[in-house]
């Protein structure tokens, strides 16, 4: 539809903190090995909850990645993941904002859920309740230990504030939250800001950590989590007929995006072109995706159109694939509609089968996975698959990763609230040869 040439945007750096690895190379190696990140929850006593396990980030020390104690004092657990993943992405790209170009650097983040930490709520309980009910006078009492650091951590754009300061990013900055679609929408927002010329470089990604008593409560109440408490590692089984809910994960993923010509000029290693973004609202139900795929279909088609390619050019789909009954069925209906005759050829997998669901970080982590898949010509596999579901008969990559050149990869993120985000990444060789650009 757009007549003028779109500015090309390169992905030149990747950083990840996930339940299966505290950096990108480890996460990528463990995805290929099919390692699973879920286990009985360690960070608090979850034994009384209907779901007692989760996919936690393990042995994470933010100070290794960000040796800045003053900054980390203001960082929540998910902000620590974000700072570490962003630092890795910038180091990987071999570029960082300078005094001369910091105003041309931007930031787009998918920020995690803003619920209050259990310990902070316990302080409110101890000082400002009467028989379990909130009593505002308790807060006004001088004995209430109000800690402004906690207040800062809890601000909706605290992650943005910490990241821009840590890395000296002084241009366009945005923070978005569309639940499980946040990370994908953040990367899409970054692409748009780059294309309209607001930035030449961007740090784009997402971060989240809801593995805490309040975070996990919200999902337990909704019955959205798998309750396979005796088999955590097998609980996330997207597209399997017996799937029974998602596995809550945590972490962060960041990409460094760069004007294509500038990246080429400095001899940067380009993982992929971030070529297209699609974005729609299902307008169906808050927690469910429509069974016929109406909503996700428009997002995927827009992303392909935005990238200037068609369904015929896509070799791999990193599915949203949460392992809930409704999501996986809806997403497959959308894939069948979009890929039609090619649905048996296009490789599909949900890497949530290994990482669990990183909520606001999921789309960003999976965008990075698409870039790594393109670089290495390897489609990661959909672990824990046993029983086929006739509603989900797409071409799943099973049992082991599948080698084969990937011309273009599609990443889907479908959120609570009905926001759908699709991103298209193209192989740099395809971009250079103008292949698939018909």
């Amino acid at each position, binding site marked *: 539809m757009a007549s*003028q040439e779109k500015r090309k945007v390169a992905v030149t750096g990747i950083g990840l903190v996930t339940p299966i690895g505290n950096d990108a190379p480890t996460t990528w190696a463990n995805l290929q090995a099919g390692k699973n990140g879920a286990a009985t929850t360690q960070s608090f*006593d*979850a*034994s*009384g*909850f209907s779901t007692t396990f989760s996919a936690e980030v393990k042995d994470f020390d933010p100070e290794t990645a960000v040796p800045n104690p003053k*900054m980390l004092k*203001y960082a929540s657990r998910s902000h620590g993941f974000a700072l570490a993943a962003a630092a890795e992405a910038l180091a990987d790209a071999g570029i960082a904002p300078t005094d001369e170009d*910091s*105003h041309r650097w931007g*930031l787009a983040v998918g920020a995690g859920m*803003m*619920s209050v930490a259990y310990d902070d*709520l*316990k302080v*409110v309980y101890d000082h400002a309740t009467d028989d*379990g009910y*909130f009593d505002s006078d308790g807060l*006004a009492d001088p004995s209430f230990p109000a800690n402004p650091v906690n*207040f*800062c951590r809890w601000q*909706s*754009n*605290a992650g*943005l504030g*910490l990241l*821009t*300061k840590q890395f000296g990013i*002084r*241009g*366009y*900055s*945005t923070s978005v*939250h*569309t*639940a499980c679609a946040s990370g994908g*929408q953040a990367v899409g*927002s970054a692409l*748009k800001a780059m*294309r309209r010329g*607001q930035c030449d470089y961007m740090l784009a990604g997402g971060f989240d950590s809801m593995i805490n*008593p309040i975070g996990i*409560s*919200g999902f337990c*109440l909704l*019955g959205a989590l798998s309750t396979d408490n005796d088999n955590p590692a097998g609980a996330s089984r997207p597209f399997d007929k017996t799937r029974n809910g998602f596995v809550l994960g945590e972490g962060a993923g960041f990409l460094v995006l760069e004007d294509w010509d500038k990246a080429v000029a400095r001899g940067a290693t380009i993982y992929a072109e971030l070529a297209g973004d699609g*974005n*729609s*609202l*299902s*307008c169906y*139900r*808050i927690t469910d995706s429509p069974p016929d795929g109406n*909503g996700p279909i*428009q997002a995927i088609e*827009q992303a392909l159109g935005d990238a200037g390619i068609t369904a015929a050019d896509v070799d791999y789909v990193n599915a949203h694939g949460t392992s809930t009954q409704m999501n996986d069925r809806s997403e497959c209906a959308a894939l069948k509609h979009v890929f039609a005759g090619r649905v048996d050829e296009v490789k599909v997998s949900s890497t949530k089968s290994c990482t669990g669901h990183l909520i606001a970080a999921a789309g960003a982590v999976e965008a990075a996975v698409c870039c790594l898949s393109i670089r290495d010509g390897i489609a990661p596999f959909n672990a824990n698959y046993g029983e086929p579901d006739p509603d989900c008969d797409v071409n799943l990559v099973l049992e082991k990763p599948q080698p084969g050149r990937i011309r273009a990869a599609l990443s889907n993120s479908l*959120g*609570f*609230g009905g*926001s759908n985000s699709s991103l298209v990444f193209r192989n740099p060789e395809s971009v250079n040869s103008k292949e698939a650009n018909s």
Partner: protein
Amino acid sequence: MSNCDEKIVFTGSGIVCGAGASVDDVWSTLISGETSVAPYTQWDGEKWPVKVASEVKENNRTLVPDRKLHKTISRTDMFGIYAAEKAVENSGLLEHRGELGEEETAAFNDRTGLIVGSGGGNYTSNYDYLPLIHEAKGELPAFGKELSAQVTPMWLLKNLPNNVLCHVGIRGQFKGTNACITNQCASGIMAVAESASAILNDEADRIIAAGHDAPFEPEMVLYYHKLGLMSGEAPRPFDEARNGTVFGEGAAAVTLEKASDAEARGANVLGEFLGWGCCSEATGVLDLEPDGDGVKRAVEQALNDAGLEPSDIGMICAHGNGTPASDLSEAIGIGRVFGDDIPPVTGFKWAYGHLIGASGIADIVMTLEALKQKTLPGVATLKKVDDEISAFPVSSASTAPRSNKALVICRGFGGMNVAVIVSAG
């Protein structure tokens, strides 16, 4: 905006805040010089250091009549849904859609976007867990076991930051491009700017942009007070005696579309979106640059985007939150762009308090009205302009804008600065 010939216009608006639940009512407050900041009623302020706010007075069912919907939304969502649906109603879009055939309607819905700036979370919603903590005697295993007996299954859904996006979407069947921006004070104004950019970029034909927030709650007041950001009376932006801000609550929304579409359907045009700028000062969550660096750069970006000179701007609606550091640096930043030729400046937080996530979009809605009325309401609480910025053209009296173009500035935590230029009248 320069690489596109299409003009983006406003064809509808809606607002609810302590100063009223319509553009006309809020305008009356701005012109009357009477602030809506008053002793609050949502909790007993007797023992509190801060006893005032600008509270929305309309009851829940007046704002959102659907009784069932109230089970799945929070107070801030109620404001957002009300304002967004007023902006839709005001634009006449639904009447237009009603005249389309089935296929055209589907295409219309797919090309209608929704971008919402949301306050994010709030403290009070988490208090739903306090009876459970009590019941569990502070023990986590018991907390987990008793969870479903004590807390509503809808808790998470009631508190999704993107609730306004999904409910306005479902109710209106607006299925196009969408976003929920959670960028603290900058959320609402960015929703407007991102909407205009998205239409120019052909991602949608029309977008409803909304911003909503309900920052007025005990813990927020407490922390703002502890940080020295809160005044005990209506804010006095740019005054030598200013001592902080005061919370308001509410929402505002606008409908944006291509000028050619608006003309074709005979829509009433409220004004035009001309350009915007956005930057961070990279100063962390709370701090800001004393030299107005971010204000200067955001305003320069907006002028450049709109293809305008500083002398083209007829009025400025400043962020003016009434805190000493923010107002001073804002005035300095404005001075660095406009030199000694600053157009008349105003700001509206004295009248309806600080709406945080909804503040910038509320200011846009009321600035469009000011341009239409060719009247710039004064800052009624201003007594004497701060000596450090004595030449700053802000006044307690109303005056006339010097052209039909206005600059709206919005600043926020995270070192955020956003500037938007609109025209009307």
